[in-house]
């Protein structure tokens, strides 16, 4: 089956560009329904399998993707955070021919003033084609803090997506880090509604597209409250015949006074057959705001290369170093050393495999 109208732009543009939305094809018609949740009990967090409390929160990938997950979910978690927790909630799925599909429907509600971190990890442990589809909805109540780190290192014949919907109340803060390295088709959609005054949304997304990979991203931040803040940073590299599409939107609604929204993107291109598509929107119905977007797309900076080579590195090593540096701040956000090492190893393999292009 196919899903249409996925990752749709909040304000569409010329149809012939074929960039207003995307389609996901050849999805499994049905998924094994066992609940594969890997959550272990943590003090201050209650977890149930009732996920209908946040249905009003919209997601970045849209309703069709949500509905597919709702109908097929085999991981269902509703997390209620009543106390701050120091250690991250760690949900890891090592996928293989024995666990070939994880369709997760999850909700996170943080009570006022609490702080919590989640680490979602999806990796492949064999060469079989696997499928991950996830919807995660977050309601960050007043003054609460949610950190969500999503690491996806599935093999290059898989299909995966993570679809987030976030609502932030007064003074709430949500920080999302996404590391997208694997899957033949990888999608991510995030829609953050900054409903409360002084709420704050921060996103750092990194990706490395190689071979035939197709990465499709849609990030939307809707500013409703006063003094709200968005900071979206997307950094990536493309090699082989990889294709990446980024739709990124900061939308200042009327009344969102003194709000600030920043989007930036930096893409390194390593092959003549890559394709990089970017649509950075700023929508504005409020005078008293500050919106900015900056994008830079191209080859590695020759000045930086020259400097590193003058310090004794070969050209290839200098390029590798600059590429690793691009990912390092996101990788350092992973609160688990084993996964950090796995991500670094994955990156190194990808870099070596594409070194001919460098």
């Amino acid at each position: 089956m196919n899903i249409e109208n996925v990752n749709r732009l909040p304000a569409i543009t010329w149809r012939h560009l074929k960039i207003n939305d995307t389609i996901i094809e050849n999805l499994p018609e049905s998924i094994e329904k066992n609940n594969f949740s890997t959550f272990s009990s943590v003090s201050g967090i209650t977890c149930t399998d009732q996920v209908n409390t946040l249905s009003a929160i919209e997601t970045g990938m849209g309703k069709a993707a949500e509905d597919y997950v709702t109908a097929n979910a085999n991981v269902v978690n509703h997390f209620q955070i009543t106390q701050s927790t120091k250690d991250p909630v760690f949900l890891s799925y090592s996928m293989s021919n024995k666990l070939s599909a994880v369709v997760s429907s999850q909700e996170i509600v943080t009570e006022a003033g609490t702080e919590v971190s989640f680490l979602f990890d999806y990796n492949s442990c064999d060469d079989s084609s696997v499928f991950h589809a996830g919807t995660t909805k977050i309601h960050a109540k007043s003054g609460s803090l949610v950190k969500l780190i999503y690491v996806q290192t599935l093999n290059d014949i898989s299909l995966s997506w993570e679809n987030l919907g976030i609502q932030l109340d007064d003074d709430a803060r949500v920080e999302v880090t996404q590391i997208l390295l694997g899957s033949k088709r990888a999608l991510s959609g995030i829609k953050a509604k900054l409903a409360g005054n002084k709420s704050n949304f921060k996103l750092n997304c990194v990706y490395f597209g190689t071979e035939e990979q197709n990465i499709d991203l849609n990030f939307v931040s809707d500013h409703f409250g006063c003094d709200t803040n968005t900071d979206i940073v997307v950094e990536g590299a493309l090699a082989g015949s990889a294709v990446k599409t980024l739709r990124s939107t900061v939308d200042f609604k009327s009344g969102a006074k003194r709000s600030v929204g920043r989007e930036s993107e930096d893409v390194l291109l390593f092959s003549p057959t890559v394709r990089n598509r970017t649509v950075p929107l700023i929508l504005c119905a409020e005078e008293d705001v500050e919106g900015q977007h900056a994008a830079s797309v191209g080859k590695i900076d020759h000045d930086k290369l020259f400097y590193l080579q003058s310090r004794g590195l070969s050209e290839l090593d200098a390029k590798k170093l600059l590429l690793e540096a691009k990912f390092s701040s996101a990788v350092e956000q992973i609160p688990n050393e084993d996964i950090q090492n796995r991500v670094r190893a994955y990156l190194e393999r990808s870099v070596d495999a594409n070194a001919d292009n460098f």
Partner: protein
Amino acid sequence: MRSFEEEKTDIAEIDRSVYDIKDKVDAGYTVQNGLTREIVEEISRTKNDPEWMREFRLKALEIYNGLDVPTWGPDLSGLNMEDITTYIRPKTDMQMDWDDVPDYIKNTFDRLGIPEAEKSSLAGVGAQYDSEVVYHNVREEVAAQGVVYTDMESALTGEYADMVKEHFMKLLKPGDHKFNALHGAVWSGGSFVYVPPGVHVDIPLQSYFRLNAPGAGQFEHTLIIVDKGAYLHFIEGCSAPKYNVANLHAGCVELYVQEGARLRYSTIENWSKNMYNLNSKRAMVQKDGIMEWVSGSFGSHTSYLYPMSILKGENSRMEFTGITFAGNGQNLDTGAKVVHAAPNTKSHISTKSISRDGGVSTFRSSVSILPQAKGSKTATSCESLMLDSRSRSDTIPVMDIQTDDADVGHEAKIGRISNEAIFYLMSRGLSEEDAKAMIVGGFAEPIAKELPMEYAVEMNNLIHLEMIGSIG
């Protein structure tokens, strides 16, 4: 009583009185409203089209009937083609001497300063009134260089008929969108310019388009060919008085910049606020050619306007400089498109927009670098100024990069006049009004300096406004 918030951002409406003077509609010939095969054939017959053009019009009508109205941009539901008169011929033939133009038309162009401009600073002038060109003239010394500047109808049957046939609607095809198809079916008027190889036209040519009749459409076609190594600056102005019914402008501008040539195309659009301005402009730029667009959008109820450049030849380049000022009742969707289709091509898009009093301004762009366009560079910068919270300002740019050997930069900013800047200038002795005028003027200055002097003055008049209490 107005609130302080309303008062403080009140920037006055553009003074349109000179544009809004209506002439009595006294057409020599008018077709029925709406769009049918019979109407298209009638226009073709009236204009003595060659057979190929009659067939072209009918084919375009077929395409028009098969295409949908675009829904991705501003609302067009207020535009009903059944109410639009597609062809109105004024009671005069084309003249080459202002004295021969009927008084009521001459007076209109006099008020707009067209004859004066011709005398002082233009190499040639064309003036279109409703559907037909009423005046066309070019200076003798320019004509002596071999420069052809004439109305499209004359070009269609004259010495350059084959050249026109070879290029007409080849860049902008009727199938591109519904309003190009409409244009193909009912086009009338416009200018044809040919600049021979190596000729540098030192002072600009100008065409001015005036739409006087209520409920009318204007569909002029501009075709310019700047041959190898030549240079031309072409200026286009447009205006209309305001009526309570929708008027439609769906012109087409096709520009061919040959090897090593350079063309600057400047537009000051000041249509009335009942106008649907659905205009299409496209340039094809050959090796080492340079295309420069300067575009000011001030009028219209609704605009769709995105001049496009196809950088077909190696080392060709394009610069687009634009300003859009959207006020009460206006929804102006403007921007630019560029396709890098050859190695080492360069493009630079720089735009400013101002939204006030409920106006909606949208910057929309598309930058494509094709796989063969190695070594290409592109930079886009768009800045938007919001003058109140009743208005909207959106930016919708698309970048599609299909090679690694490209250098792409993009930046966009949106904001308002800062209190700090106003207070600083006031602390240096400026009045509040002068401070605000200076800031808005400074915001628009990079555009103004690209315009010919008289247009820069006009633009400053348009935006250098009564800034009563306009601290933002």
